[in-house]
């Protein structure tokens, strides 16, 4: 497979916390994610999987090693440039939905798109509605985000992650707060995204059942990838 198909490429990522004592939480992690691949990272709590995810997401810039997003290096870029990269290339789904309660569902989904400003407001609105439709919550579009149920909120968060057609969607325990039914729903959505739309997905989870159904499982222990 050619390198152009590589969405995310991390080489020898290391990270040390110094407070209160010096601990090396990542001891040289390398991984690649290809286009259309659905990858999960599992491991015990404290093994560094979430730390790794936030480094890969460019939000945490305090690390050693090299990171390339779509072939471009992200090491030593300005916070502003990284913010722009995240805006265009990465979609996020967290354990908590992080919807802005002041805005309607539709506006929440549109916000990253408005920031990117590649499409007009009308186009974005249509685009956002398509995403909501796909996730089965188009009928909630005009409601305030705070009016929705937990599962619905998480689906809105997924729609928001997808608004700018990102290269990769990253998830940090995206089903952690959901019951089995909603978790399965979220998994099915991710599955479809990967297989039908060629969307790359990188999800940190401790839900083994969820991980087992992904294309590739990366298991971590004590700051290293063990399988």
């Amino acid at each position: 497979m050619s390198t152009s198909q590589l969405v995310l490429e991390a080489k020898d990522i290391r990270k040390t916390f110094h407070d209160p004592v010096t601990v090396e939480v990542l001891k040289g992690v390398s991984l690649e994610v290809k286009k259309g691949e659905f990858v999960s990272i599992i491991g015990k709590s404290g093994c560094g999987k979430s730390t790794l995810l936030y480094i890969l997401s460019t939000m945490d810039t305090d690390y050693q090693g090299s990171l390339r997003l779509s072939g471009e290096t992200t090491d030593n870029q300005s916070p502003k440039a990284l913010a722009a990269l995240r805006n265009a290339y990465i979609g996020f789904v967290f354990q908590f939905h992080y919807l802005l309660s002041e805005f309607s569902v539709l506006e929440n989904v549109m916000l990253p798109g408005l920031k990117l400003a590649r499409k007009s407001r009308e186009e974005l609105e249509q685009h956002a509605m398509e995403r909501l439709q796909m996730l089965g919550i188009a009928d909630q579009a005009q409601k305030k985000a705070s009016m929705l149920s937990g599962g619905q909120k998480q689906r809105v968060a997924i729609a928001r992650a997808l608004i700018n057609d990102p290269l990769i969607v990253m998830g940090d325990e995206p089903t952690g707060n959901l019951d089995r039914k909603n978790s399965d729903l979220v998994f099915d959505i991710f599955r479809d995204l990967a297989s039908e739309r060629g969307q790359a997905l990188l999800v940190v989870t401790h839900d083994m059942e969820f991980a087992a159904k992904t294309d590739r499982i990366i298991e971590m222990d004590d700051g290293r990838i063990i399988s």
Partner: protein
Amino acid sequence: MKYKLLLYIAWNLLTARLRQSIIAGIGVTFGITMFITLMGFMTGLNGLLDGLILNRTPHIRLYNELKASEQQPIEQHPDFSNHLLMQRSIKPVDRGRGLYNGAAALEALKQDPRVFGVAPKTQSQVFYHVGTTDITGLVQGIDPAEEERLYHVSDYIVKGELEGLKRVENGIILGYGIAEKMLADLGDMVQVSSATGEKATLKIVGLYQSGLAEVDNSQSYVSLATAQKLAGQGAGYFTDIQIKLHDLTRAPELAKEFASVYRAQAVDIQTANAQFDTGSSIRNLISYAVSITLLIVAGFGIYNILNMMIYEKMDSIAILKATGFSGRDVQWIFLLLSMIIGLSGGILGLGFGYALSSLIDVLPFETEALPTIKTYPVNFDPVYYFTGVSFALATTWVAGWFPAKKASKIDPVDIIRGK
């Protein structure tokens, strides 16, 4: 586009916390209201007090002072050119207090493009005869039309009218204080004699009250011709030429020039009335100090509310940053939020300030000293309204800056992982 989006986000955050935002805005409104009212009232009062003196003071006054001859005879003798000369015998000659070639000087000044207007004056020391006693005083011969155009004398005429001087050949407008002493009223005749011995019987066509007791107790106005007659001089005799300039600030330099050209003494308004400027500027300073204090208090209110809002909105800030808003964008959102509060609070303050000023403007204010003033003086100069809004924006900018900076520094990883 970028700022439109940030403004849109700021607006939504603001309206979601409408009550807090309104309370923050009220602080600004109150500050600006007080600023506008205080400044309007203070400067109105300043204007009135300054007007009391300055409006009636010519920018440059040309006059002829009595003084000893500068060239004593002995100095002109060649034999004594190297000697210390102590013999000075030529005393001032009384060729009147009149300006040298006054009529010609008046004409020349009227043509001068730098001069706004010229009013000649002939002053004469007089005695007002009251029963068996005399009151010393000063009679000012004026050109009623010019005097009115330049110094608004009619503002101070409380009875009768200025035109009386034109209509009645031997009319006099008497100072209120003298009139009271003489038990004289409109239409009465008064006897006046000058220092040179000229006598005249004048008919009262008006009474004036300047508000300065000293002046009201001694001065009165007559026509130029009457004053010249009292001084025993002809039609070209003027003791003063009062000059009003287009540009007040040039008075000192022009005073020097006119003094040498017209061979007279000249005094400019800055030299004559330095103390009034000081009083006005101190009153202004106090008003600014009070208003700025109020605005700083309002600023702290905004600072508090923004800090609280940022604390509540940590999650929102984190997700905005995660999804691609930069620290600067976040900072702008909160700055804009603060500025919206400042601008709306400020504009509302202007409205209230105007209303309060208008209210004060119609409140009755009557005083013996200021006969023409019926209500409190208020200045509605738009400059203070601009200053007020600029103050509001500046304060809210500063008050918003620190919380906004803090928001821009929030690390989304800390917030998201902290859950």
